[in-house]
């Protein structure tokens, strides 16, 4: 099947999103979608194009048993009652976080050049426009971080790197990120693939998180094995 023609690609991507692409053609298209950014992007385009059709569906609250069953599937502790009742309102306080002047802890070292270590994992943080902000090379003892020059720099805050454990535990700090140039963070956590759900960058008061938890999460990305 020829995927090079724009018209053909459009026809396949729209049929995939609509659901009319079936059987072997659908499986082949999914495989190519996983391999080729251009195909993925065309699918995303059609998802966004057709999504307004859902605006005509009358919202229907799902039955009360659905939420506890989702939590149970994820191995989360099930609440005493079935009604969702968050104890911590992310949206309400994420925007109002005040910056406080803190003492810079100086957790990282300047790197004179490329570290002579075996890189086992890599990660890339990008902004909303897809522009690369930081590149990370992870070895068994350290994380080499390079800022690209597109990182927004301010004396009012610092950026902090976190690992999100795969077991659902609280995020753990990996240190402060450079705002320009390159740095090496000594590795203090086990970042093997089965231990990590994702890594993230948060915006913190100067010196890093004062609570031990991230204040405002800005970017999240997976760790990729090399």
């Amino acid at each position, binding site marked *: 099947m020829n995927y090079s023609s724009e018209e053909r690609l459009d026809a396949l991507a729209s049929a995939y999103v609509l659901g009319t692409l079936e059987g072997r053609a659908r499986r082949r298209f999914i495989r190519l979608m996983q391999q080729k950014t251009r195909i993925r992007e065309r699918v995303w385009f059609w*998802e966004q194009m057709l999504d307004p059709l859902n605006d005509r569906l*009358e919202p*229907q609250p*799902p039955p009360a048993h659905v939420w506890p069953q989702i939590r149970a599937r994820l191995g989360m502790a099930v609440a005493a009652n079935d009604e969702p009742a968050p104890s911590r309102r992310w949206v309400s306080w994420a925007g109002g976080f005040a910056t406080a002047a803190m003492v810079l802890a100086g957790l990282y070292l300047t790197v004179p050049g490329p570290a002579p270590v075996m890189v086992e994992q890599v990660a890339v943080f990008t902004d909303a426009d897809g522009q690369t902000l930081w590149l990370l090379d992870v070895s068994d003892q350290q994380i080499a971080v390079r800022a690209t020059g597109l990182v927004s720099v301010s004396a009012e805050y610092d950026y902090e790197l976190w690992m999100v454990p795969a077991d659902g535990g609280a995020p753990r700090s990996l240190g402060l990120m450079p705002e320009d140039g390159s740095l090496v963070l000594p590795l203090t956590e086990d970042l093997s693939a089965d231990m990590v759900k994702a890594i993230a960058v948060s915006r913190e008061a100067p010196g890093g998180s004062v609570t031990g938890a991230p204040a405002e999460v800005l970017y*999240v990305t997976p760790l990729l094995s090399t």
Partner: protein
Amino acid sequence: MTEQDHQTLIRAVAMGEQDAFQQLYESTSSRLYAIAMQLLRSPERADEALQEAYVKIWHNAGEYHAGRGAVITWMGSIVRYRCIDMLRSISRKEDRQDSLDDMAPELAEAPVTEESSDYQAMEHCLAQLESGERQLVHLAYYRGLTHSEIQNHTGTPLGTVKTWIRRGLQALKRCLEQ
């Protein structure tokens, strides 16, 4: 809840924050359940699809990015694809004809979301389609029917079904991009 709120929540979910996940569920599950019910026409199957979709959203939140569109669009796609997979599986195992009896999509008279400008554009562009094209696009999108199922239901020849849907989608695209 605004798109910006959803963006904040999905980043927190990617960090493994269960409270944010719950808040996102509260804000989005009614829309996602409506998608599942519209396609599957069965509370039991819609429950199952919704649960699987949110499990996937929890695990894949870190893969969301702005290129996917609004958070709710990304989440809607996840539940929609899950429903389509379930429908194809049902079609293989059962005669789906019984569930096709009441074919007309159950749509609200007006868009039900707060920000309806996208839908107004969609409404305008749908109105530009030939009625046959519009009907077949509706059957595929809202009922998740395959080309063959549409052929069986409407009596329209298979080639015509394919052509009208393809032509309808291309016309929608041209209109919405204007």
